[in-house]
């Protein structure tokens, strides 16, 4: 199992002219360290207008800076919002290809469509059409990357024959992902042969059905790109502390601040009933304060020993990688974040090498659900 980190670029009030810069600079230092110590992916969201929660509206720009300062770590656009009124698909393809080139072929191309009224309404986009828009874009973009004369006449955008340039360095094109937060999208990812980028900060139990459906359906997929990518990333929260108490106090409090801010966003299902967004028009499922602070199983906040136990739940669900949010603005002091990453790399990562996981799989009693899960961490 592999591990990555991701950034919302949260910036809490009060804001100064330096607030966002400080967030970006600290994130960059963390990414440089993550690259050196073995994290294999870093993702940045594309969000718009989500004050405090996310000031990360231009992932290609930030990831290009990260590319210049790192050597190995893959750079994930998590995601490029594939809605033509917000981002013309040709501009998405151009920017992604350029990032792939300047990073030496390290781009992981994430796609999606936004889930908040704040963003979709902010660009005057009809929420009912976003799923179809996304679907049209992800079918067009690989062709832009691989064809010298691309022409498109679709429902949501059209263009005459043009050579969309540059072409990416990865051959035939970068791996394609889609942000998944619902069972329907997990199925749609599998049907299209693209990777599942879990974006729900959940637990292994939350992901179990999504992963099972994805694995079953992708075997029979009709890929939108030139190849099939069968991989699942899960998203979670990381704080690898000095000891259990310190970890819960520092990491738990930061996670709570994050969820509290997230709760004040307006999800599309909340005020716009639409077949394209399945949540009902009332309370969305949110982790309660009690749930967050009790740190449900699989939530990697704890001492290294506790996190090893928690990561074994993810191993049992069968994800390829867990990608983790590592801070909420300054909720955790920057030095502690760096120390958390180092502890994780030193103590946790070695327990999840292919060899170690193969050994555990051999020893585990065979059941329908795969290796038995370890006892719940406390």
């Amino acid at each position, binding site marked *: 199992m592999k591990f990555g980190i991701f950034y919302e670029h949260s910036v*809490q*009030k009060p804001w100064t002219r330096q607030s966002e810069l400080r967030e970006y600079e600290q994130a960059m230092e963390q990414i440089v360290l993550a690259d050196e110590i073995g994290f294999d992916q870093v993702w940045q969201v594309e969000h718009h*207008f*989500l*004050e*405090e*929660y996310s000031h990360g509206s231009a992932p290609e720009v930030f990831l290009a800076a990260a590319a210049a300062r790192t050597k190995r770590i893959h750079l994930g656009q998590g995601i490029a919002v594939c809605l033509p009124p917000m981002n013309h698909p040709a501009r998405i393809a151009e920017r992604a290809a350029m990032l792939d080139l300047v990073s030496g072929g390290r781009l992981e191309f994430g796609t999606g469509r936004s889930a908040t*009224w*704040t963003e979709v*309404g902010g660009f005057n986009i*009809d929420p009912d059409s976003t799923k179809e828009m996304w679907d049209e874009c992800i079918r067009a973009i690989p062709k832009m990357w691989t064809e010298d004369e691309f022409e498109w006449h679709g429902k949501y955008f059209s263009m005459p024959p043009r050579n969309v340039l540059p072409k990416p360095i990865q051959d035939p094109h970068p791996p394609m992902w889609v942000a998944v937060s619902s069972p329907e999208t997990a199925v749609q990812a599998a049907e299209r042969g693209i990777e599942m980028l879990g974006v729900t900060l959940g637990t292994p139990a939350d992901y179990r059905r999504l992963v099972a459906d994805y694995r079953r359906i992708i075997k029979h997929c009709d890929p939108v790109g030139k190849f099939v990518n069968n991989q699942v990333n899960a998203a979670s929260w990381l704080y690898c502390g000095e000891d259990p108490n310190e970890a819960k106090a520092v990491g738990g409090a930061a996670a709570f*601040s994050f*969820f*509290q*801010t997230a*709760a*004040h*966003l*307006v999800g599309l299902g*909340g*005020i*716009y*009933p*639409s*077949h394209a967004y399945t949540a*009902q*028009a*009332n*309370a*969305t499922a*949110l982790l*309660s*304060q009690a749930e967050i602070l009790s740190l449900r199983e699989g939530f990697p906040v704890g001492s290294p020993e506790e996190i090893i136990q928690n990561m074994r739940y993810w191993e049992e669900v069968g994800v390829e990688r867990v990608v983790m949010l590592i801070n909420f603005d300054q909720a955790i002091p920057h030095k502690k974040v760096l120390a958390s990453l180092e502890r994780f790399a030193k103590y946790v990562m070695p327990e999840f090498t292919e060899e170690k996981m193969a050994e555990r799989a051999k020893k585990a009693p065979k059941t329908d659900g795969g290796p038995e899960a370890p006892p719940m961490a406390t």
Partner: protein
Amino acid sequence: MPDFGRAKHAKYAIDLPTSKPEYPALPWTCADATILNVYFEVRKEILLDWLPPEYGRTVPAYCRLFVVDNPQSPAGSFRDATLGLGSRMSMMPAIFAAASITNSRAALAAGIFERGYANAFGKIEFEADRTGAHAIISDEKGPLLEVTLPLLQTIEPSRLAYDHVDAIKTSRGDNGMKTELMVTAPDFKIEHAAICKNARIEYPTERPESAWQILNNRNLVSAQLVRGTRTFAAARLPG
């Protein structure tokens, strides 16, 4: 940290009637009720001026306007309209009633003494059929707001649900008038639902002193017309 409201409860204090009018005991089951419901964005600073400090504003700030036609109830037919502020309390979605009107003396009494809303008397014109809906809300000084749903499209009722509504209730305490925050439970069982993608909110006359116009529409989000059974019940203290 979220921005919390800055309206003191006293902002919502009302003059209580000298005596408590008679009305049928709550809850009232109102069969065949119709709700015209509209979500629209408002300016955040204005919303914060009207939102009590227990609540945090959302991003973006929004209001929920709903007009209910109750053709049957133990108190007879009545209509009520509420302008709710979209918000969060303890991280969960909430709607706080910033203004409310009913055309029924019995519903007004029940609203004032047991719910916190509806707490003003007025006139509500309401028309709805399979194709569209229209309502005009007026208080005793005249029209405040007009909402039109010109074209309806049927949707699955399961796509919709409405959150509970909270309000400030004024009552007589040992040391004079007191105000307290009250919460109701979700009160509508939806049987038929339709959406409108070209709804309009208009302000027929200028009423700059009224919450109905101070919290004015900056961007209409969505509109629905639903039919079902409403339970007009007493509110309770939070927690």
